[in-house]
């Protein structure tokens, strides 16, 4: 029996023209206990070598042979790869350390992996090649005595060594993370293995995905642990030679978390563990705090809450997600922290105002949204600020001001439905039935065919991630193979 520690819910709430979709990934971390004696299959070391070749030859952002090869691997192949790559990454720093233990994310205890003596020697050889130190580091001298290296591996060793000479010591870690980022983005179904070896059940992470459409679960499936492998690889990034890994100090790691977290939200995939881990590494990064806030704000939305309440999942599975109110409180906390670091962040102020309102703190909300209204320059942001401020003023009984705010929103987006229905409801509430009917007639007169640009409210839960694709491209760019640059 395992207990699940993470849900990610992918929401394209109110995505125009298609169902509101959500994908919830549930991760089952290992128990962190000592492993039972179980030999490591030879196949795993061969797979690790194959993986290194794919890391070296994959062109980030491209659906090439290297990517598609790894995409064919089963869920358990990927789980065992997670273990072996973790050991490999440790050996890349200290080949002679004899490291053969792994510690799953979120666990305090390490677990020893029972490689045979021959397997350990081969792992050291692979680590030396991957680190680009096969011919230069004293710890790697003689490593080739334990078996030769074939063409893909020697090419990798040459590329890693060349990168090292030009100052890049984490060639495989970074390229490996990008390979698995692309695999996660590709989102191919993985083949579930009927009988999982004990070693994997004990320590390897496990990922599930729940697909949600229009507030309802439509699928529940096992998925590949690509984000887990990518995170683990980057966890081994150290600022200087011989130093303990500190990925939070690395600009590429920071950019990768910002880009991937935004990308997940743009695609409606909310892996809460991803941002939890990002915050461990980048405690005071305002962008990560902002995205953490928007993620929890999204998890409070009716689409996700409804899907979670009605989800049918296997025994032992639980969602790492709170009630609407709990999620809103968490969002509020993250927005508050982000604003302490970056007080002039208009979008954060806007989101904080909305969440405060949803929590019933209408006076605070109105104050935040008034600030956002004055500072918002782009059309969607100004629209959101007006629309939300209207709702807060209405809640405070300031009906004339509320009407003004809704009218401002309607003026910004004349084809938007939400301000018109808000105006109609406000008029109805204040006894102005003629005004209510007039606004409703305006709504009914809108063009029959409308798209997501007509009413930004429909895209609210995606808007924060609008630059995600460009961010991902920017992270990939330095690692593109020459022919693609």
């Amino acid at each position, binding site marked *: 029996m395992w207990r699940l520690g993470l849900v990610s819910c992918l929401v394209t709430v109110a995505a125009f023209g298609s169902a*509101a979709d959500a994908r919830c990934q549930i991760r089952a971390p290992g128990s962190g206990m000592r492993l039972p004696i179980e030999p490591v299959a030879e196949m795993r070391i061969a797979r690790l070598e194959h993986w290194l070749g794919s890391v070296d030859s994959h062109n980030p952002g491209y659906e090439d042979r290297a990517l598609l090869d790894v995409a064919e691997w089963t869920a358990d192949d990927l789980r065992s790869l997670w273990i072996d790559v973790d050991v490999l990454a440790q050996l890349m720093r200290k080949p002679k350390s004899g490291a053969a233990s792994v510690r799953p994310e979120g666990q305090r205890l390490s677990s020893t992996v029972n490689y045979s003596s021959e397997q350990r020697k081969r792992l050291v050889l692979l680590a030396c090649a991957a680190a680009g130190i096969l011919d230069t580091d004293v710890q790697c001298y003689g490593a080739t005595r334990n078996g030769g290296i074939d063409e893909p591996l020697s090419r990798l060793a040459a590329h890693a060594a060349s990168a090292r000479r030009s100052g890049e010591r984490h060639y495989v870690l970074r390229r490996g993370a990008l390979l698995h980022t692309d695999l996660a983005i590709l989102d191919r179904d993985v083949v579930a293995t009927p009988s999982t070896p004990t070693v994997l059940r004990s320590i390897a992470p496990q990922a599930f995905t729940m697909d949600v459409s229009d507030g309802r679960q439509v699928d529940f499936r096992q998925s590949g642990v690509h984000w887990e492998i990518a995170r683990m690889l980057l966890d081994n990034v150290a600022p200087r030679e011989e130093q303990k890994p500190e990925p939070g100090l690395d600009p590429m790691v920071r950019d990768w978390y910002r880009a991937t977290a935004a990308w997940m939200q743009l695609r409606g995939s909310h892996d809460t563990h991803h941002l939890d881990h990002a915050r461990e590494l980048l405690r005071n990064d305002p962008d990560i705090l902002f995205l953490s806030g928007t993620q929890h704000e999204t998890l409070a939305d009716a689409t996700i809450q409804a899907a979670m309440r009605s989800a*049918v999942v296997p025994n032992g599975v639980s969602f790492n997600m709170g009630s609407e109110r709990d999620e809103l409180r968490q969002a509020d906390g993250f927005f508050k922290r982000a604003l302490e670091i970056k007080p002039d962040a208009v979008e954060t102020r806007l989101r904080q105002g909305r969440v405060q309102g949803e929590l019933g703190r209408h006076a605070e909300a109105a104050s935040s949204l008034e600030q956002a209204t004055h500072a918002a320059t782009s059309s969607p942001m100004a629209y959101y600020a007006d*629309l939300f401020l209207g709702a807060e003023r209405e809640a405070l009984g300031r009906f004339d001001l509320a009407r003004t705010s809704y009218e401002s929103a309607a003026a910004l987006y004349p084809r938007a439905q*939400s301000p018109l229905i808000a105006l109609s409801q406000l008029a109805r509430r204040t006894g102005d*039935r003629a005004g209510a009917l007039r606004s409703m007639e305006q709504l009914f007169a809108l063009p029959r065919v409308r798209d997501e640009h007509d009413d930004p*409210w*429909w895209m609210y839960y995606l808007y924060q991630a609008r630059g995600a694709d460009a961010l991902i491209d920017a992270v990939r760019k330095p690692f593109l193979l020459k022919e693609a640059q």
Partner: protein
Amino acid sequence: MTRRAVVPLTLLLLLLPTAGRSQNPAAPSRPAPDPAAQSAIFSSKVEAVRVDVLVTDNNQTVRGLGPADFDILDNGVPQQVDLVSFDEIPLNVILALDMSDSVAGDRLNQLRTAGGAILGALHKSDQAALVTFSEVVRREAPLSTNVESVRAALNQVDASGATALVDGTFAGIMVGESDAGRALLIVFSDGVDTSSWLNGDTVLDAAKRSDVVAYAVAVKSALKPEFLRDLTSFTAGRLFEVDKTANLAAIFLGVLDEFRQRYLVSYTPRGVARDGWHRLEVRVKNRRAAVKARPGYLAGS
């Protein structure tokens, strides 16, 4: 069912079966209500309250009751019943139908059949309208005695997108209020709200201020249709939770039949505060009968 701020003159017109209404089903619908004209009516200080009442005895509708047969308590204060009407007033039937992704396919065909059935059962003087909602709320056909235009609109709708159930319901209420007739709103949804701007409480508040009687059909799921349950409760309608939608037409026709069996009772409130929530109790004197009426109405802002 209640209405506030309706002048007696308007009410009298309502109680006449054909007053102001074309008898020709092929005739174009009445012009869209002029908001200014509506304003003139509703700005009156004189208030009358209408209550739709279903009276049954052993599940059989009790007919032939008059004003003297009803006791109405408004916030516990006995009221003088002015008028009672039964089976005389033309209906405004508003269909508010979920057109989100989940409705596509067989369910959409079943909805068309059910909608067609209810349109076919309307009297010549009745009006119908069609509102649909995905994330987009549309009035596919305005209130009209020309039911063929509503049927044509129903046959052209497509299902895709998210579910703005709350917004769509509000639009349905407003279509009901756009005409002084007796309004029956039938809401169908097979899911939960995922994209409305308005929140459920706001629209329930609007329903409490409205004369519209709302019936709803929800497809059963693990989630309780709380919004529709409250909506139908506050408006004295009824919620049907169904496993399948194959038999929707029978449900729609049953709703229409039940609605036609209702009395429309009106009174002018006396001895009660004007604003706020008014708790209503409706009883039939001197006989054992089951009475179904809205639990109250909301007046003032």
